[in-house]
């Protein structure tokens, strides 16, 4: 019962934040709405008993990436940016694309038989070692190669951005 209430609160935060992110004109408001949305997602992780993901979501996305977003937004001239005509006003194209994608998703879900929702099955009780140990086991044993490839990719991106930012002398 309590879980259901929390689920709806977090879902509302996530969706409401996401809608506000794309509808607000002020970049600052958009960024802060995005933070609310990310907080909602973190709460949903917590409801799924994925504590590690919850903490990492907040530490990385809200405490790291979004602060950098704010950092940039604070430095640009907001008033001018809000007055300027936005180049992403493609109402017709956007509408057609979103209807198409929506129809596709409904069709996919329907063919997979998900739309007729089955009765709720309670999540199995947590067994064995904790969440973090299980995650580490999967990450560093079964999926070690993809993990390392992803790290390498990020490293390349970091080195590349440093090279681009470096002044040519």
């Amino acid at each position, binding site marked *: 019962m309590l879980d259901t209430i929390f689920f709806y609160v977090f879902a509302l935060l996530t969706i409401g934040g996401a809608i506000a992110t794309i509808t607000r004109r002020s970049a*600052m408001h958009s960024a*802060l709405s995005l*933070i609310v949305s990310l907080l909602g997602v973190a709460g949903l992780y917590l409801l799924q008993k994925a*504590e*590690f993901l*919850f*903490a*990492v979501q*907040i*530490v990385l996305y*809200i*405490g*790291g990436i979004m*602060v*950098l977003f*704010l*950092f940039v937004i*604070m*430095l640009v001239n907001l008033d001018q940016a809000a007055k300027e005509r936005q180049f992403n006003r493609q109402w017709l194209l956007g509408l057609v694309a979103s209807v198409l994608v929506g129809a596709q998703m409904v069709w996919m879900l329907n063919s997979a038989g998900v739309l007729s929702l089955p009765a709720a099955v309670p999540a199995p009780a947590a067994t064995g070692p*904790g*969440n*973090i140990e299980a995650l580490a086991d999967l990450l560093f044993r079964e999926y070690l190669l993809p993990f390392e490839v992803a790290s390498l990719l990020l490293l390349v991106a970091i080195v590349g951005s440093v090279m681009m930012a470096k002044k040519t002398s």
Partner: protein
Amino acid sequence: MNVDLISILGNFYVLTLIKLGLVAGVLLTALAYLQWIERKVIAHIQLRVGPTRVGPHGLLQPLADTIKLLTKEDLMPSHVNKFFYVLAPMVAVFFALSAIAVIPFGPKINVFGIETYMQLSDLNIGILFLLALSGMGVYGIALAGWSSNNKYSLIGGLRSSAQMISYELPMALAIASPLLLAGSLSLREIAESQAGFMLGFIPRWSIFQMPAPQLMAFVLFMIAGFAETNRIPFDLPEAENELVAGFHTEYSSMKFASFFMAEYANMVTICCLATLLFLGGWYPIVPSPVADYIPTLVHLAGGGMLIFHGLQPARKWDKYTMPVFGVAFLAVGLLFLVPFLQPILLPLFWFISKVGILLFLFIWVRATLPRFRYDQLMHFAWAFMFPVSVVHLFVTAFLVALLK
């Protein structure tokens, strides 16, 4: 009737509410008095006397300050972004105060047959939770700086967000190495892994613990802690000789006080965290039979000193106040000998004295060191702290994997 009362008090919600009230009351009082201690200590380091007018030795100064700040006019400048201007101090103080919820102060205790931990909630990701809260705390300062619509405030807010992101990296890496020794993310389990003694007299605290003593990580953590709490020598966000008062220039009344409260609460959190991770939490520095008498001896010595000074008064009122405080110290010292109270008071004494020594270090540094320049601050974080903490983590991981 008696049994009923105990079963009611043992109820999870009732028990939590009681603990919450205790912890919140003690924390808020401690925050107010921390400011008094800071002013007194800095004054004595600088050969002044500090607050003396309100109450004996200025002891009621925090109360007077609170009343002053609460009743002052709450000025709202006309050019601010109202919503975020009001939100910012709330965010700062909320995330700073909620950190106390996961910090354990002592072991499991037994009060009138009710067994409970001296902690509000033992999260299995306690340490990550604290990192998450400190990450959210940045928004209080950044938003305050931005919403004030003032160039000085904005620069203060920008400086603080850049500084806190930069120092969060070495801080997280310095935290990671004692975690390797403890093998857990729960603050309680980390502290419990440091119980006992090596060779019978060296405490198994992380900073001494074999195979990888964490002294270096402790130093790195404390330096990063100074930066995270925006304290001197890293208080660039509020450098008053460059930025008027930095991010809180436009704030007045209780909103201004909220930022101060948040700063002091963050200080307390950092010191608690350092104690739990590196200094063995609530475990004493010497083995048990001796350790049980140290609190009494410390209090008796303090009380004796106060009474001695009271007999040779330097100021008019010292004649009365000093002996009264001295007697109070003696009484508290004797409380530590009551067998019924010992399991509660002894761990609390060790925990609070370790936290207190670290807090004194914060104040001492503020009275001693000048402020960094901003480029020096960033260079220090990225070119010194970060590589050193990475290497330290590698060495620790290697030693733990090899020898444990």
